[in-house]
């Protein structure tokens, strides 16, 4: 069993009415592992399912609602904290989708609050958040120096009273990545959601999601990111998207994301050799919720580091981590 069953259920929820108990157990375990169970619950809606499944889906739906409420509250708190320094809060990912009521936000697992601010405002933002009760998660000088020098975000902060994390980005990709998105344009073209709250333009939302899925990270949780892209593509003008992606140097990533979205969640697409490997990795999940294909996973972990850093830097980074007892799994 691969996550193909999960992908099919999201694409066409009618198929779940034919599932037996084993099929349900596998589907639920995979959906939970991919953090898509809330989305699945909303997709299935009121279709006839066994009572035991109904309860599980209802729980997932309530969890997603609470998740969204808390995410919006964190956004509210960040807006309040930054009101004094006149930096607009640009929400990224799940919180933005929830705040704007986008389809991509329905039932979505959210987690940390991600915001984007101009690079030159980073220091001010950092101080304003520290004043408002956020604190650094770890105080390891190597990690801190690494973040500041090479990453596209501040080291993670957590709010002492509410126990929720915030990631403050100034770019959607690390500074070491080979693509250099036009962040000034992204921020300039942001669209308002509510008072003091903004999100990326529709095209930039897809560029970000595609970069997040394919240029940054090891594809873990990729099925959910790809589902975001499917939802975000709704009603998008393809030529406007292509032009925007080219401007950010992300044309290849956006193209691949669209092919994968169509292949897995849509009408199908012609996939290249590399597309197929990525698709296999995205679907590497069994009916017990376990990740499969370990060698492929390791390859992706190495590739994900390599994508973000020039090789010399990578060696130094891995070496420093290694000495401190980290081992790639």
């Amino acid at each position: 069993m691969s996550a193909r069953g999960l992908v099919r259920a999201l694409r066409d929820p009618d198929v779940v009415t034919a599932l037996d108990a084993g099929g349900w157990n596998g589907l639920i375990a995979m959906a939970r592992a991919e953090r898509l169970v809330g989305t699945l619950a909303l997709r299935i809606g009121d279709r006839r399912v066994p009572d035991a499944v109904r309860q599980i889906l209802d729980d997932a739906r309530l969890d997603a609602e609470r998740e969204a409420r808390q995410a919006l509250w964190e956004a509210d708190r960040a807006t309040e904290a930054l009101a004094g320094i006149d930096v607009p809060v640009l929400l990224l990912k799940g919180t933005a989708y929830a705040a704007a009521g986008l389809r991509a936000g329905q039932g979505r697992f959210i987690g940390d609050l991600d915001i984007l601010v101009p690079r030159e405002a980073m220091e001010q933002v950092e101080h304003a958040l520290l004043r408002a009760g956020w604190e650094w998660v770890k105080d390891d000088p190597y990690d801190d120096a690494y973040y500041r020098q090479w990453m596209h975000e501040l080291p993670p902060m957590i709010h002492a009273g509410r126990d929720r994390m915030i990631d403050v980005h100034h770019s959607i990709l690390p500074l070491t990545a080979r693509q250099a998105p036009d962040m000034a344009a992204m921020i300039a073209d942001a669209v308002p959601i509510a008072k003091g709250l903004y999100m990326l333009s529709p095209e930039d939302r897809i560029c970000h999601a595609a970069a997040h899925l394919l240029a940054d990270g090891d594809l873990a949780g990729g099925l959910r990111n790809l589902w975001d892209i499917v939802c975000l593509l709704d009603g998008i003008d393809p030529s406007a998207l292509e032009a925007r992606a080219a401007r950010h140097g992300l044309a290849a990533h956006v193209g691949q994301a669209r092919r994968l979205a169509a292949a897995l969640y849509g009408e199908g697409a012609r996939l290249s050799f590399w597309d197929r490997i990525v698709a296999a990795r995205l679907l590497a999940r069994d009916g017990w919720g376990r990740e499969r294909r370990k060698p492929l996973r390791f390859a992706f972990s190495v590739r994900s580091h390599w994508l973000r850093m020039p090789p010399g830097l990578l060696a130094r980074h891995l070496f420093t981590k290694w000495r401190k007892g980290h081992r790639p799994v």
Partner: protein
Amino acid sequence: MNHALSLRIGPATFRIGSTWRRPVEALVALYADYPAPVDGVADFTVRLEPAGPFRRWLRPSIFITGDHGLADAAPMSLAHGLLAAEMGMNLQMALGWRRHLLLHASSVEKDGRALVMTGESGSGKSTLAAQLGERGWRLMGDEFALLDLDTGAVFPFPRLVSLKNRAIDVLAAETPQRRMGPLLAGTAKGDIRHLVPNRDAIGRMGEGAKPALLLFPRFGHAADVRAVGQGEVFMRLTQASTNYVALGEPGFAALTRFVADVPARAIDFPSGDEAVALVERLWKECG
């Protein structure tokens, strides 16, 4: 997975998969009288898998995970596989259960009313519940009490009772051998032996009861009974609940109702027999 078992405990159902045969065999033997999930669909998946690439055979050690897991959970010896499975189920309940307010508490029932006991591990709440369960009360659970969000009733979660160290001999003396599991020596919490709840406890695992008394027991002190203020009770119960925050407003409503309605006492006791006598006395008083 190679070896698997599904079972129901109270309102919750589990599908447990293991790389090795032994933990599942031990579960099958001890959970023989428990029902299977209705519909065959389990609320939670638990996985016992090798802690590293070679750990299936070489000094086998178990990583406990499932739908919900902790990345930094310490691996366990295969010899303690039964305990690993129990911990895996507890982990799912603690992190994933949403249909009741979950209190880290033991509970027993008599005449349709429930006694709930909460405290740190080592407080004696588990042993006391097990003893009461052998002396005319219905054991509802030694680890989790499930508070209904609408009615305020307490529902049972009568998993195997996990007896530790000195409690093992105390219970072994008044329980038939066939209801005692194997001795698991030298676990992180010392020696552990599981006790299968009696037929009444298992047969009535779906039956709730109105909470009538809340106790905060403390083992190893001179006998004493103290009143506990409602504010303190509320604080201690939020700390004893793993899903209070996740439930949001219904959790708030259920917990405030419980605190306002149920009398609470802190009790100290030097021995199990004195504890049972003390509980029986307090139970009559609140009767």
